[in-house]
C-alpha cells in the first residue's frame, strides 16, 4: 500500500503533457521587470537607481525585515526605470526594469556544471547566511523565505527534513523534470538544508505518477542511510505541507501550528536545487524552471527562465498563444492565479504557465446546494465548506472561527468537486479575509 494522507482529497485529471520534455534554456529577453515583492513578507528595498549598470547576480533590492528576501538582477545591463507594474497577483507592484545588454556575470559565481559534493566546509550558520544572501524562497509557490524556515526557533527540534517532490498540481512538470536532470545536485541541496536545520533524517516524497524520478532518486540516495525516498499515492493536495507530513511520517501539525511543532521542515525540491547553487556555486536565485502547458499548446515545455522575463516570451517559445485561449494561469489549475495580461514577469514563485481553452475557462452553472456532502468528504482539513459558505454569506464571523475557517489552505478541492457548481472557495476566502480583519482590529 502506498502512503498518502488519510482524510479528503480529490484526483483531477493529471494532464502532464510536458512530462519528459528536457529543460530548455530560454533566450534572454530585451528587457526584464523584476518585482521587489516576489515572496511572502515585506517587499525588498531597491538598492539601485535609474541608469545604474548591473551584472547578473548583483543585488538590486535588499531584504527589508525578518520575513523578506533579497532580489538579484537576473541579467546584465542598465536599470531603465523603477516603477509600478502589474504582476501575477493582479496588483501593481514596484519593479526594477532592466534593459538587457550582453550577459555578464559577477565573477564569484561558478558557472561550471561540475558537481560539488563536499558540504563539510560550511557550518549550519554559514549555510543559512548564504541561503539568505541568495534570496531563496520556497519555489513550490508559497514563496516563504527559506532561511527563516530552516532557522529552528529556540526550544524546538527539527528531526525530519521532508523534500516536497510531490507536484500534485495537474499539468505541472517542472519539479519532475528537474529531478530527472539534476538529481545529484538536489541530493547535495537536501543535505545542506538538513545540516542547516539540524535534521536527523531526510525524506523525499514523490507521487507515484513519476516512477522514473522515484527510481533515479532512490538510486542517488542509496549511499546515504539517512535519506529515504517515499513513493506516495497520487492524490491532490498531497503537496500541501500538512498533508505531506501526515503522509510521510504520519504526524498531524496542530491547528494553527507550524510543521516544526511536530519536528518537521518541508522544502520544495526546486528549493533544494537553488540551495545547492547558492551555497556551492555562489549563485543567487535568478532563474527557475517553468512549465508552459495547456491542452491547445502546440509545444508543451519545461523552460529554464531568468526571473523577470515576460510570460509572453515563454508562450511564444512554446508555440505561440493558441487561438482558443480563454484563460492564462500563473501556476497550476487548482491553486494558480489567472492573469489578465501577458506582459507580467516570471517571478520566483512561477512554477508554470497554464493556458486553458475558452470552453473550459468558464465556471460551471450554479445550482442550489443539494447537500450531497462531497465538499465535507473531500476537505483535507476536515472542515465543512457548505457550512462555512453559508456563515460567510451572512457574516457569522465568531461561528466561522469556531468552524476553523482559518485552517483552510485554499486547495480548492471543495469547489472542484461541487456538482452544483457552487464556488465554495470564493465564499471561504471572503470569510477568512473578513475574519482576519476583525481579529487584527481586536488586537490593535
Amino acid at each position, binding site marked *: 500500500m502506498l502512503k498518502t494522507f488519510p482524510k479528503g482529497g480529490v484526483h*483531477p485529471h493529471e494532464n502532464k503533457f510536458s512530462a519528459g520534455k528536457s529543460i530548455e534554456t530560454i533566450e534572454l529577453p530585451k528587457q526584464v521587470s523584476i518585482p521587489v515583492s516576489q515572496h511572502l513578507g515585506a517587499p525588498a528595498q531597491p538598492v539601485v537607481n535609474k541608469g545604474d549598470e548591473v551584472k547578473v547576480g548583483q543585488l538590486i533590492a535588499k531584504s527589508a525585515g525578518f520575513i523578506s528576501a533579497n532580489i538579484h538582477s537576473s541579467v546584465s545591463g542598465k536599470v531603465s526605470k523603477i516603477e509600478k507594474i502589474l504582476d501575477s497577483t493582479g496588483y501593481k507592484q514596484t519593479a526594477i526594469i532592466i534593459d538587457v545588454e550582453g550577459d555578464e556575470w559577477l565573477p564569484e559565481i561558478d558557472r561550471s556544471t561540475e558537481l560539488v559534493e563536499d558540504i563539510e566546509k560550511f557550518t549550519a550558520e554559514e549555510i543559512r547566511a548564504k541561503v539568505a544572501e541568495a534570496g531563496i524562497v520556497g519555489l513550490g509557490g508559497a514563496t516563504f523565505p527559506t532561511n527563516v524556515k530552516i532557522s529552528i526557533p529556540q526550544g524546538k527540534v527539527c528531526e525530519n527534513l521532508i523534500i516536497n517532490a510531490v507536484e500534485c498540481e495537474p499539468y505541472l512538470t517542472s519539479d519532475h523534470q528537474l529531478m530527472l536532470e539534476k538529481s545529484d545536485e538536489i541530493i547535495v541541496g537536501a543535505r545542506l538544508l538538513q545540516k542547516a536545520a539540524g535534521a536527523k533524517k531526510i525524506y523525499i516524497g514523490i507521487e507515484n505518477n513519476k516512477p522514473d524520478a522515484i527510481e533515479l532518486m532512490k538510486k542517488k540516495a542509496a549511499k546515504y542511510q539517512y535519506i529515504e525516498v517515499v513513493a506516495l499515492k497520487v492524490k491532490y493536495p498531497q503537496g500541501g505541507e*500538512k498533508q505531506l507530513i*501526515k503522509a510521510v511520517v504520519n504526524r*498531524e*501539525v*496542530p*491547528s494553527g501550528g507550524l510543521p516544526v511543532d511536530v519536528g518537521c521542515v518541508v522544502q520544495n525540491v526546486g528549493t533544494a536545487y537553488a540551495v545547492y547553487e547558492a551555497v556551492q556555486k555562489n549563485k543567487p536565485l535568478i532563474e527557475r524552471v517553468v512549465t508552459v502547458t495547456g491542452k491547445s499548446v502546440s509545444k508543451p515545455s519545461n523552460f529554464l527562465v531568468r526571473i523577470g522575463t515576460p510570460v509572453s516570451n515563454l508562450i511564444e517559445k512554446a508555440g505561440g*498563444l493558441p*487561438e482558443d*485561449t*480563454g*484563460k*492564462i*494561469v500563473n*501556476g497550476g*489549475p487548482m*491553486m*494558480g492565479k*489567472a*492573469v*489578465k*495580461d*501577458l506582459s507580467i514577469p516570471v517571478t520566483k514563485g512561477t512554477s508554470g504557465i*497554464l493556458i*486553458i481553452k*475558452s470552453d*473550459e*475557462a468558464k*465556471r*460551471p452553472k450554479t*445550482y*442550489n*446546494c*443539494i*447537500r*450531497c*456532502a*462531497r465538499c*465535507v*468528504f473531500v*476537505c*483535507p*482539513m*476536515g*472542515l*465543512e465548506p*457548505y*457550512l462555512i459558505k453559508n456563515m460567510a454569506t451572512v457574516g457569522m464571523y465568531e461561528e466561522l472561527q469556531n468552524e*476553523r475557517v482559518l*485552517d483552510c489552505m485554499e486547495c*480548492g478541492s471543495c*469547489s*472542484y*468537486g461541487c*456538482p*452544483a457548481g457552487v*464556488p465554495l*472557495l*470564493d465564499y471561504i*476566502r471572503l470569510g477568512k479575509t473578513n475574519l482576519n480583519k476583525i481579529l487584527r482590529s481586536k488586537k490593535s
Partner: protein
Amino acid sequence: MAQNKLIVSLSPHDHAKDSVSKIMFGVVIAMIPALLVSVYFFGLDAIRVNLIAIAACIFFEWIIQKFLLKGEVTITDGSAIVTGMLLAFNVPSNLPWWIIVIGAIVSIGVGKMSFGGLGNNPFNPALVGRVFLLISFPVQMTSWPKVQVLNFAMTDAQTGATPLAIVKEGIKNGESFSSIINNLPTSYSDMFFGQMGGSLGEISAIALIIGGLYMLYRKIITWHIPVSIIATVAIFTGILYGINPDKYADPLFHLLTGGLMLGAIFMATDMVTSPMTSKGMIIYGVGIGVITVLIRVWGAYPEGVSFAILIMNAFTPLINYYIKPKRFGEIVKK
C-alpha cells in the same frame, strides 16, 4: 486579439465533470433494474404507474415554478423524475391514476417546492407523498396485487397481503413465526428475487442492491447510510429472534420484505435530507433501523421504513449541528 478576452477568476480553474443533473440521471439508471423486475412481476401496470407519477411530478414542478414562483424552471435537472420514480416505487401497481396524481401534487408541491425547491426540502418529497397517500387512502394503498410472471394483459389481478402483514397478523393471533413462514407461498429466495406482494419497486432485494452498487461506483451515495440501516435492523431483529423465535421474525425475513432495501438504498440516501458527515450518516442510519423495527414489531402498521426515514429526516439538522467531521490537526487529548 485574444489577450483582451482573457477570463480572470479565482482558483480552482478546473472542475470535476459531475453535475446535479448527472447525479439525478445516475439515480434513474440505478433504479432501472428494480423497474425491470417490477414489470416482470406486475406487467405493464408498473410502467403505467411510473409514467403517470413522473409526468405528474414534472408537470406540477413546471406549473409551480412557472406560474406561482415565476422563477427559473429547473425541470430538466432530473430531480422531478427521481421523485416521480421513487413515488411510483412506493405504491401498489394497481393504484388508480388519480391517486397517483394526488401523490405527485403532495410530493412536489408540499414536499419540495413549498420549501424552496431542490436542496431546501427537509423531508424526502417522495415519502411525503407516499405517507400522505397511505393515511388518506389506506384501502387502495394496501391492496397489493398478487404477482403474475409476465402478465401483460391489463386485467384486474387478484390482491393479497404482503408477507410482513401476514406475519404480523399471524403473530398477533398467537401463531408461531415458524409455522406462519412454512405456510407462506413465498420462499426466501422468492423474496430475494422479488416474487412477493408489495409496492412495485420494493419487491426485489437483488435488483435494488445492484442499483445501490452502481450508485456506490458512481459515488452518488456512500456506504454509511445503507450499511448502518441494514446492520441495525439485522442486529435488532436478531436479538429479538434470539429471545423468542416464535414471537419474533428472523432477521433475514426483515431484511428481504417490505420497503427496507428500497428505503435503505434509495430513500434514506437522498442527499438533500440526510446528514453531511460520515459519523452523522451512521447515527441517522442506526436511527432509521431502530425506528423501523419498533414500528414493524410493536407499531400499528406492518411496515415502518417510510415513517422511520421521515422521522430521522427531521433530526438531520440537529445531527449536522452536533456531529462534526474529524478536524485535521485537532489536538487529541491523551
